[in-house]
């Protein structure tokens, strides 16, 4: 059993920031476990979602921002939909991931690389370019054999374009990203 010393590690500012950014009242969670019961990802989580909520109440910033679970939540909305206290748990998971990202943590490097490749593709083309983002993911991670077995299945179907379907004015979308970075959101 993990014993947490609350006098030494309880970060009240962290709790307040998560509550503000997610718009959720963290103290409402009474640990019924409904979120974990319905979560399809518990089998790959290092901390099940009800424990994430409990650790959050205890202000355990470092444990949470370095855990794998926050990167593996797919936002399937099962927890949010079933929470008896109407906590948007998926929003809390998203918020923790935002914070981890801002602090340079990337416990699931593959997942982060996929997200980055996807958004780079959108910033450049205005739309997600499937072939391009796969190549970018492979370059970032060095996983050269990613889905190579799928190529003979999908290429003859003519569904995977070798060129991006750009919007007419990609600069308009690039500007959204640029302004976002300029605002330096914290």
């Amino acid at each position, binding site marked *: 059993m993990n014993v947490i010393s609350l006098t030494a590690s309880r970060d009240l500012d962290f709790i307040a920031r998560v509550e503000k950014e997610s718009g959720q009242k963290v103290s409402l969670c009474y640990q019924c476990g409904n979120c974990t019961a319905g979560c399809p990802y518990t089998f790959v989580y290092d901390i099940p979602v009800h424990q994430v909520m409990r650790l959050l109440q205890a202000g355990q910033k470092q444990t949470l921002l370095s855990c794998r679970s926050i990167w*593996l939540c*797919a936002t399937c909305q099962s927890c949010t939909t079933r929470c008896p206290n109407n906590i948007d748990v998926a929003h809390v998971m998203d918020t923790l991931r935002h914070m981890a990202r801002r602090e340079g943590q990337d416990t699931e490097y*593959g997942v982060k690389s996929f997200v980055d490749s996807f958004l780079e593709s959108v910033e450049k083309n205005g739309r997600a370019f499937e072939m391009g983002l796969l190549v970018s993911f492979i370059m970032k991670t060095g996983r050269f054999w990613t889905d190579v077995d799928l190529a003979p299945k999908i290429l003859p*179907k*003519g569904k*995977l374009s070798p060129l991006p*379907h750009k919007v007419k004015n990609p600069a308009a979308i690039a500007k959204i990203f640029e302004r*976002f970075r300029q605002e330096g959101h914290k």
Partner: protein
Amino acid sequence: MSTRLRYAYYPGCSGLGTSKEYDTSTRAVCQALGMELVDIPDWSCCGSSPAHTVDHRLSSALAGRNLALAEMLEDVRAIITPCPSCLTNLKTAAVRIRKPEFAAEVNRLLDKPVRNTLPVKSVLQAIIEDVGVDAVRPKVFKWLTGLKLAPYYGCIMNRPPEIMEFDDHENPVAMDQLMEAVGAEPVAFPLKVECCGASYGVARRDIVQTLSGKLLDMAALNGADAMVTACPLCQMNLDLRQDQINSANKTSHNMPVFYFTQLLGLALGIGEKDLGLSKLCVSPKALLDSLEARAERKAG
């Protein structure tokens, strides 16, 4: 609101690529049902899951740009999209932008502010609510009698209910009803809203193999000949990755995974070019060829 069934259509990025057949069959089915689709001019990516995992203002701005472009179209009653991921992004942005403080932050990122004047619906919802199941039945050209289907909605088409506001969030029935209306037979499928593994196929294939594997197992266990979906990502995980799933889980599924618009289109007499049945990785040919024989047996 217009009385015409005229919509601002948001195809979504995958409609240009891996779910081409969903886009073409959607357009053909809508036309057959008297729904007029006007593509949102120069629509861009909604941000999908990657954007909201980075920041909600960025995500809402990427979705919001498309809401703002759709608002410029005349005489449309709603924005509709076939893809649940696009749907959830567009709807979540629209709901969050109702808060003036959040709207101001999002609008600062955009060239043109979002006014939030149009409802956002899935194509499935528009067919059910605006056309109606009863109006589909008389248009059937070929009944899909004897086709047993596991209707799979995916995780976010109906959840969370406060945002998605359509059908039941634990046991949705819209696709079941449409498939029944064209003569097919939906089987019990208790994993209707379970997640397929989402976009982790590339980064963490093990997750998709486990979660989509469960879906295929359950569909087979309940006697389905095929699965029917409304989501490009669910379809891709179940169809394109079916061999990966089979080798990881030591199973031997050979389960066609249709888009509901392909089956609806087949029943409405729409041609192969629009339906794109040959674009599915698990070929449905043998199954569809056997349908007529089944229908005859049932009639006899």
